[in-house]
């Protein structure tokens, strides 16, 4: 029997278009996490404890659960130096869920360390994290190591965080970057809104590639209770 359509055509249209570029899709289903907790492990993502220690990974009815340690703690999943995505032309999408006293930073980056040199990500926190201004709402942040170094650019979306699963879409394009939550455009960082605030200016991303990443961040001054975050879908692709 002949196929009605291939996955290639569904994603990319005609074969006569330029060849499809890199893509990554992870569903976080099944009984075993598709992550590597050590260099010798296999997996679609590498797990890091970029701050503090601890963190446990398990598959649940809500996808992959990342459980923090009981102290100040950041657990990150990324493609670990396989930087196949263009910071001037790629998209990141996910479905994730946070819990009280935990925040999720996610998007594209190029290094596994905390406060990575280049990144573009959505920051969603829900209460508990009073030392940071993103508690209870979602912000959009970029940083580039390209000179002139300007530190972070951070824009509040005006979209409140919730404890429900939410869809994140980040577009890194030539003119700048955008963030949409549950289909609603929340923020744009580009030359077009440069004058909004001195705190809001575009970053020229390096030409180095980036990879998808998601980190689960326990509060800076946490209670001695482990917190859970969930992720059930991540897709990244070059446009």
């Amino acid at each position, binding site marked *: *029997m002949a196929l009605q359509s291939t996955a290639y055509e569904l994603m990319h249209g005609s074969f006569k278009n330029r060849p499809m570029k890199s893509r990554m899709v992870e569903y976080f289903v099944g009984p075993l996490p598709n992550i590597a907790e050590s260099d010798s492990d296999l997996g*679609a993502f590498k797990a890091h404890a970029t701050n503090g220690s601890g963190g446990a990974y398990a598959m649940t009815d809500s996808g992959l659960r990342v459980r923090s340690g009981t102290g100040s703690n950041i657990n990150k999943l990324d493609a670990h130096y396989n930087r196949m995505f263009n910071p001037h032309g790629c998209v990141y999408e996910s479905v994730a869920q946070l819990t009280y006293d935990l925040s999720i930073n996610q998007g594209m980056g190029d290094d596994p360390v905390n406060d990575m040199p280049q990144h573009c990500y959505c920051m969603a926190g829900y209460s508990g994290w009073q030392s940071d201004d993103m508690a209870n709402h979602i912000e959009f942040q970029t940083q580039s190591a390209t000179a002139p170094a300007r530190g972070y650019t951070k824009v509040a979306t005006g979209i409140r965080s919730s404890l429900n699963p939410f869809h994140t879409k980040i577009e890194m394009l030539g003119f700048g970057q955008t963030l949409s939550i549950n289909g609603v455009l929340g923020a744009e960082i580009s030359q077009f809104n440069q004058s909004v605030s001195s705190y809001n200016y575009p970053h020229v991303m390096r030409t180095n*590639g980036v990879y998808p990443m998601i980190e689960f961040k326990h509060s800076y001054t946490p209670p001695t209770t482990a917190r859970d975050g969930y992720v059930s879908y991540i897709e990244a692709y070059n446009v």
Partner: protein
Amino acid sequence: MTEYTKSLYSLWNKSEDIMGAHIVEFFSGYRVNQRVWDVGGSQTSGTATIGLDDSINGGVKLATGTTSGSTAILDMNQTCQFGRTSSIIFVSIHSHGADGESYSGLSNGTSGGSASPQITSYVNTGWRSSNFDLYTYGGGAGTWTSGTISGLTSKHAHKLEAKESVANSYVDGVLNCSSTTTLPDDHMQPQFTINNNSATNKTLNITYCEAWET
């Protein structure tokens, strides 16, 4: 009538058809999915290596290294779930415009080379042209069919079709060449191989692979 979100099955197939084997692979993330892919094992020889590539649109990279005669082979370790009439799409790019030898497509056997049932895109400028040739093997013999499209060092979307009476090679949606002889006569697996034929590192990057029963 309520409209539902469509399944991949319904997008790929007519409901009256029973779908055969189908794989979609993006070759991205931290590690090659070795639950599916054999990244070499005993078949990869010399200084050859296989791994995901840290570059934009890098995909998986097969590299021979610099020891002459080194071969990198990426396949499913002879788990041949695709019948003799199957198709494959892959997006790939070679590092070199001359010499080296690669077979990319569907093949039976884990050794690579020309002596197994297969339908592959063949590249070896040492004795062929710089076009993408079509190689088919079946019934104990093989045929190289001259391709009409060149561009080894550019990224292309290849599609190979093994049908009952013809094998077709398409490059970027354009018919490259066809063969009606020595069509594959056994089940196959996706397989990508590259040999350097010299003391020069030759690479083959693959960013997408989709194979299915035709």
